[in-house]
């Protein structure tokens, strides 16, 4: 089983937004038996939007829900006003549903907005706020309903982690282990905290110990295996890194980074022929990452596959050109 990466409250928001970005549209509402004419339908929707704008959401929402449940119109010059109407209706539906605490309806409307207007700033803004509120509600409920549960302690620890309060985060995680030494995932998180604290040898050794302990409790924790591999890779212990990354990829066949790290470590150990397979797998899973194409180009080149190397290097250039700027890059104004 894949061990999830610990999720902070902030990350919950990221997950929620990504779910909207990449998720499926919600199931359609039950269609009306008799379709109204286009003109009368548009008038009805306009009326509902108007009601919503006046705060009469109870009256407006049924018609708005119906309007947003229809398939999106194909965008042409002739029906651009229809597209605008769809946007306004969905936005009104979302806002009304939020004000009436109808979470499912709000989420449905936001899904549709994200699907049909994926880059609209207002859509992104309202989505962020709504899921932030949902996350806050859920965390408050957890604290209220089960304050001594390990899940509540874990959330608290993750919150400390997100604020960089490493010692407090570690103490919270330790409390969970004090109650039950075999809760899976906690040693992994302690390992992560140790690595976050600093780059000293003692921090690294502490992290290593925690990851190893995690694997004793949960041998299927691919993230712990990966982290041990990464500790080895960062100090050039290629054979150890290869072993850990191989296990991580075996445990979780969808763990893309494990393939990349395995390929990189094999290449660093001059085992270029062995590096090809994991790197090929990685570029299939994450074709937009220049790292995979670069490493694969090197592996191809060193195994005599010059044409393939040139092709991958071209892909590296193309993907690197599209890569987002790093966190330390300035934004020209």
């Amino acid at each position, binding site marked *: 089983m894949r061990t999830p990466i610990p999720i902070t409250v902030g990350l919950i928001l990221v997950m929620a937004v990504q779910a909207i970005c990449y998720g499926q549209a919600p199931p359609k509402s039950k269609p009306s038996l008799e379709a109204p004419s286009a003109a009368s339908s548009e008038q009805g929707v306009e009326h509902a939007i108007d009601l919503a704008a006046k705060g009469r959401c109870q009256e407006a929402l049924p018609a708005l829900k119906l309007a947003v449940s229809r398939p999106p119109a194909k965008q042409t010059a002739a029906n651009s006003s229809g597209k605008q109407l769809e946007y306004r209706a969905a936005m009104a539906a979302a806002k009304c549903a939020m004000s009436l605490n109808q979470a499912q309806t709000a989420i449905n409307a936001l899904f549709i907005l994200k699907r049909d207007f994926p880059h609209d700033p207002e859509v992104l803004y309202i989505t962020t706020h709504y899921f932030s509120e949902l996350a806050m509600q859920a965390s408050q409920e957890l604290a209220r309903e089960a304050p001594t549960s390990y899940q509540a302690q874990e959330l608290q620890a993750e919150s400390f982690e997100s604020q960089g309060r490493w010692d407090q985060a570690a103490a919270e995680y330790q409390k969970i282990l004090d109650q039950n030494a075999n809760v899976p995932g906690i040693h992994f998180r302690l390992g992560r905290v140790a690595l976050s604290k600093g780059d000293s040898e003692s921090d690294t050794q502490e992290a290593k110990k925690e990851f190893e302990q995690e694997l004793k409790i949960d041998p299927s924790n691919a993230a712990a295996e990966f982290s041990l591999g990464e500790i080895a890779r960062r100090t050039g212990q290629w054979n150890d890194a290869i072993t850990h990354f191989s296990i991580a990829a075996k445990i979780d066949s969808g763990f*893309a980074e494990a393939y990349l790290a395995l390929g990189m470590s094999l290449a660093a150990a001059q085992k270029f022929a062995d590096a090809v397979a994991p790197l090929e797998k990685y570029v299939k899973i994450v074709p937009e990452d220049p*790292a995979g194409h*670069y*490493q694969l180009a090197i592996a191809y080149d060193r195994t005599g596959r010059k044409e393939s*190397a040139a092709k991958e290097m071209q892909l*590296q250039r193309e993907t690197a050109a599209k890569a987002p700027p790093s966190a330390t890059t300035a934004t020209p104004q």
Partner: protein
Amino acid sequence: MISRRRWLQLLGLSGFSSAFAAANGSAALKPFANASSLWPLDEPDSLPAFEEIPASKSGITWTHTAGLSPEMYMPETVGPGCAFLDYDNDGWMDIYLVNSGPCDFYTPPHPLRNALYRNNRDGTFTDVTVKAGVAGSAYGMGVAVGDYDGDGLPDIYLTQYPHSILYHNNGDGTFTDVTAKAGLAAPGWATSAVWFDYNNDGLLDLFVCRFVDFDKSKNIYCGYGAENKRWYCKPTVYTPMPCWLFRNNGNGTFTDVSKDVGISKSPAKAWGVVAADINNDGWMDLFVGNDTVPNFLFANRKGRFEEIGLLAGVGLSPFGLARSGMGVDAADYDQDGWLDLFVTNVDHELYSLYHNNKDETFADAAPGAGISAATKMLSGWGVKFFDYDNDGNVDILLCNGHPDLMVEQRLQNVGYRERLLLFQNTGKGWKNLSAQSGPIFSRALAGRGMAVGDFDNDGSLDVLIAQNDDAPVLLRNHAGRQNHWLGLKLVGRKANSDAIGAKVTYQAGDLLRHAWKVGGGSYLSSHDPRMVLGLGQRKKVDWVEVKWPNPSEKTERFTELPVDRYITIVEGQGGWK
């Protein structure tokens, strides 16, 4: 959900006696003074490996002025360079320091100039800049020293924005600006430069690194954070420009061959360069550190250059992205007969020690050497491979400092001023000896250029660090005096006069070593042209073999050699003095 890739990035994955006295080129040799008369061989153990010599003792009172402005023009934060050179051929290393100066974006409030300091042979220096006439004329960057006309006198190429200068050494303590006649103005923003013989005709040619397309009107506002505070831009926002290669015509003039030989096909954002024969084919190659574009490895194909950096494995980070390559150097650190490379980068990018695979490819050995971990939060500029303790193994010294004054507001654990790093080569691996090598390693510097040279002629290579907007730092090396050594001044005749590209092999008892004389290396800086062969505790050198660079094709072996002093070997004379 948050991807494990992001987790990887968070982990930091994302990610090296005698002197020619005659001005007329004749080789009038005279013995060096024995440095041991100044400083005894046996030093108390309490002396640090590197001791800072304060300006009050050295007499080097000049300081660099960057002209740091609210507009944050990029050149302000990346200089300066420095050099050890023996401009008066008295056998003692003098010092040259580069300053900023007037240009379209900067009008100094008071006159600024470079500085040439003459070595007084007693640990002090005298400012002779005005008499020498090497003050500079624009916004200075770096310096490359070489005897381009073979008259036995080192000449100075000063890189500047917006045009550079060639100072010809007149042999009487003065220099003449011969830029116009030579055709070496290199208009634009020049950074590091290196003298080397690219076409094996025995004449020193000149490679000049160029940074981005820049002038005052092209300055870009880079903002950070909610308040959009201005900071020094990462150069991704600027347009790369090709470097220059100038062929020496042998008559005091040069021809720009950048296009003819394939250099200009590769737009650069070049900071550092080293000339070294990385494939042992007898033709000098070039390794160029680029900022936010891939580093270049220009393989010299008999006078034409093929850029092979990407597939050679030295162009990009392991994650397939260009880093901020700055200082570079080359040496055969593991004595396998092939030159290895080093490049410094900025924080979170890690520096790279590229081990030569002997097939025009390289593998990054920095993680296993402990260099990756030590440099994760640092931004490196000057870097040099040299045998600081004369044990026969080349070590690495790095000077660091972040280019952005605002960095501490943006990033945790990254400083504007940063500490030096010293990695000792044990012959089996690397040891970070920074903490044990003197108080200077505890002091945060705005390090940029770094030159290596033996200013006190004790065979123990000293260090000069040029700081941005601050005073230079002169370090006396005490570690090398714990071992024996032999210093060589090589003079080419058929080969280029500075013997750039020469390979020296030597045997001292059980110690068999070789060393190449590479061109340039480090950042914006130029080094003592002499080679120091470390012998460890061995008191005798059995033999020294010099393989002169092409077109010489000569290999000469010398025996009955002294130790703990410098000698001069002139190509084809069959002896030493």
